[in-house]
């Protein structure tokens, strides 16, 4: 149905895509997988008319086409669902759909679009409240609105960019069922992901990109996970490091007792109690936006108003009073760009963000930059951070290197308590394995780790105990003696 031949794209000296060819068949679910920077998004942007290719041709139903803008793509029947939804929150779902269909000026056109949206809803068996403002819809519902929006372009080809990133397991199942039924009715689906398990579950054909090259394109049947991962990375998949059973009777490093937090008159944390012991990883699962950020803020900044009691205990005695608390804590925040790093400042400055005022990095209130450089160089080697030089602004580093920098800063002085929030967001397989291994290593060395993570599989792989957060309430599970499915149900508020 759609075929691309020898597509190449460069940005300056950076080769984003090189002679990539692939075919998308009608009625099939196709996958494009690859690490960060492999060229997935560039390829999709070319197919959707957001970027022109430097070379190569695109054939649509056998005829060469030039997709010069998203509007052109939509006219051809191509729709795209973006990883970060591009809906206007203040408008209703239907208004958003009409907005993109481009016929909003005439009421007849609006009716037409509404009818088409209703038809797609019927076909997928969905009942979305399309007249509600998007801001009142849950994440999963918003994604469905985007899918309907994309399908209203004609439903020939549906491109989904990392569609499962923020969904609970059950929602992922529902999404896959919908994609299967779409494929069965003749729509071609192009599914972009770096989660191989999901790809192998629903796709028939796969294209693997690595540094701009299509290293494999064809049937998925007969390929194992390990083979796929190897093709994707171009080397061996890093192994998870072993996790000896947690020590019995490790002391409680963090204890929350009956903590309740209110924000703007609504309660965001309901009587949360929690203990994290040394040598233990406690995982908190949950769909995003269920109070995780309030929990993080409340632990990170005890001056914020909260009811209940929180204690952080330590074996070290002589921490300087004023900043002592922060020195005990390692915080790997959810959004490294806004919370963890200062993108405009250099690698060195960011590496010293937490310790710049302590000797030997400062004396008598004056900074001693010579010590900064050697410290930074050491940490960069230890954590394999790659950057042109130490004065590079952190904003120019790749996501993986940025996260490694945060880890290097937070984990290097063997902290006793680690708070990590979605630490692998946006990272590829290699970087993800690195990050998770660092957390396990710290745990093995006796740190207490609280891991708040939206990716259930990664969470379950490392956690010694798991609790689920739903609408501000925390419910404990007896993981590993409980099933993944029952945790998934708790994430959606369904009590077992």
């Amino acid at each position, binding site marked *: 149905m759609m075929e691309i031949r020898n597509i190449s794209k460069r*940005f*300056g000296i*950076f080769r*984003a895509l090189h002679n990539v060819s692939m075919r998308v068949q009608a009625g099939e679910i196709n996958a494009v997988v690859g690490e*960060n*920077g*492999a*060229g*997935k*998004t*560039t390829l999709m942007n070319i197919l959707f008319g957001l970027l022109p290719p430097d070379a190569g041709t695109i054939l649509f139903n056998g005829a060469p086409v030039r997709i010069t803008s998203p509007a052109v793509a939509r006219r051809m029947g191509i729709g795209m669902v973006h*990883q970060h939804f591009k809906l206007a929150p203040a408008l209703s779902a239907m208004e958003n759909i009409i907005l993109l269909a481009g016929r909003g000026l005439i009421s007849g056109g609006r009716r037409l679009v509404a009818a088409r949206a209703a038809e797609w809803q019927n076909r997928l068996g969905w009942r979305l409240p399309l007249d509600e403002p998007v801001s009142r819809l849950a994440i999963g519902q918003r994604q469905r609105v985007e899918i309907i929006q994309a399908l209203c372009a004609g439903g020939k080809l549906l491109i989904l*960019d*990392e569609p499962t990133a923020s969904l609970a397991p059950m929602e992922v199942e529902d999404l896959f069922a919908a994609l299967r039924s779409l494929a069965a009715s003749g729509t071609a689906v192009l599914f972009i992901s770096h989660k191989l398990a999901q790809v192998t579950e629903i796709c028939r054909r796969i294209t693997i990109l690595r540094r701009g090259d299509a290293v494999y394109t064809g049937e998925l049947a007969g390929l194992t996970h390990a083979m796929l991962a190897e093709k994707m990375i171009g080397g061996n998949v890093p192994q998870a490091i072993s996790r000896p059973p947690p020590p019995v009777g490790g002391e409680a490093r963090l204890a929350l007792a009956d903590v309740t937090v209110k924000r703007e008159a609504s309660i965001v944390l309901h009587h949360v109690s929690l203990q994290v012991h040394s040598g233990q990883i406690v995982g908190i699962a949950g769909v995003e936006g269920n109070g995780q950020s309030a929990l993080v803020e409340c632990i*990170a*900044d005890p001056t914020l108003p909260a009811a209940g009691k929180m204690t952080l205990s330590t074996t070290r005695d002589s921490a300087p009073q*004023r*900043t002592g*608390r*922060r*020195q005990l804590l390692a*915080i790997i*925040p959810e959004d490294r760009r*806004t*919370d*963890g*790093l*200062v*993108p*405009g*400042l250099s690698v060195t*400055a960011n590496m010293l*963000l*937490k310790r*710049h*005022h302590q000797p030997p990095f*400062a004396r008598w*209130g*004056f*900074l001693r930059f010579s010590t900064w450089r050697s410290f930074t160089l050491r940490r960069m080697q230890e954590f394999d951070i790659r950057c042109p030089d130490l*004065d590079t602004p952190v904003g*120019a580093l*790749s*996501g993986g290197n940025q996260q490694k920098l945060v880890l290097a800063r937070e984990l290097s002085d063997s902290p006793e308590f680690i708070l990590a929030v979605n630490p692998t967001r*946006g990272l590829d397989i290699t970087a993800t394995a690195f990050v998770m291994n660092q957390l396990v290593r710290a745990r093995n060395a006796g740190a207490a780790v609280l891991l708040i993570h939206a990716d259930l599989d990664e969470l379950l792989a490392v956690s010694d105990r798991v609790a689920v957060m739903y609408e501000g309430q925390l419910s404990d599970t007896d993981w590993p003696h409980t099933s993944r499915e029952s945790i998934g149900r708790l994430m959606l508020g369904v009590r077992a």
Partner: protein
Amino acid sequence: MKIRQSLLSVGATVMACAAAFGAVLLVLWACGYPPLGILHRWLIGAVGNSYYISNSLAETCPLLLTGLAAGIAFRSGVLNIGAQGQFLIGAMVSVGLATRWQVTPAVMPTIVIAVVGGAVGGGLWAVLAGALERWRGVPVVLSTILLNFVAFYLVEIILSGPLQAHGTSAPQSAEIQGRYWLPVLIKFSSLHIGVLLAFCLAALLYVVNRQTVFGFQTLVTGLNPRAAQLAGIPVARQQMTVIFVSGGLAGLGGAFQVLGVTHFLIANFGSYGYAGIAVALLGRLNPLGIAFSALFFGMLDTGALRVEESSLGLPHNIADVVKGTVLLVMLLLLAFINRRRISPTAKVDAAATEGR
């Protein structure tokens, strides 16, 4: 890379100044004024002889201090645009301590007390805005500008009451006795010692910004307050310190101006506070840059007086036209440079860090 960038920004600023000056002269030429004659008089009036030079430097002093006030605040993300009010309050406290509220008749102590008092007065006036934000959630950018009006009328009230000169009904303070004036560096000029101190403060702030824990923490706070807070930097306390220092610098400017140049105070005491914002922006918030831009503005103002005195019929406000044009041209240039600098790399970055 760093050096190249700073050269680029200095070059852009100088170009902006020259281009703006040229543009204004061009307009004047189109209106029938002789551009070269104007330029000549302007230069003479700014740097023509030691008298004019010392006047230019004296005019630089309040601009430099209010510029530093705005610069240090903006750099730390504290949008203090109330240097005008802090300047006035500083001048008022200072003139009070040197006249009616004098603590001791001794000369040196009186001058020191008046100077320090002016700075502290300006600082506390700014802290008022900081406290409103800290405990009542009023944005500093609003409270500081509103407090400018409060300061203006407060000073007028005090100048019509406790500090009013005898034998007048105008809101005006008594003249400070000659022995309490700031010492001058060159006889019969207005080049007072405060000018020297202001330049020293600029150098000091440069070192503080670059080399100290305080400078680093306020920079981080200004660039990313959330990250600063999470990194354990006492953001609230630092910002309060910054706003006190910022207001103190503006207040010091007021104190120097009244003790060194005017020797008495009226409520309508020039708009150095507002000009300071422009000075800080032109100096790119860097204390050394601010020193140069204050010098430039000071020379513009002083030179324009000579232009006005000539028979051309141009008011000295033409200097303000040049200042405004300079800022506009510079903003345009910066926008241009940033676009050029960001676009290619941003694309590579976007492609390299796919998915975000």
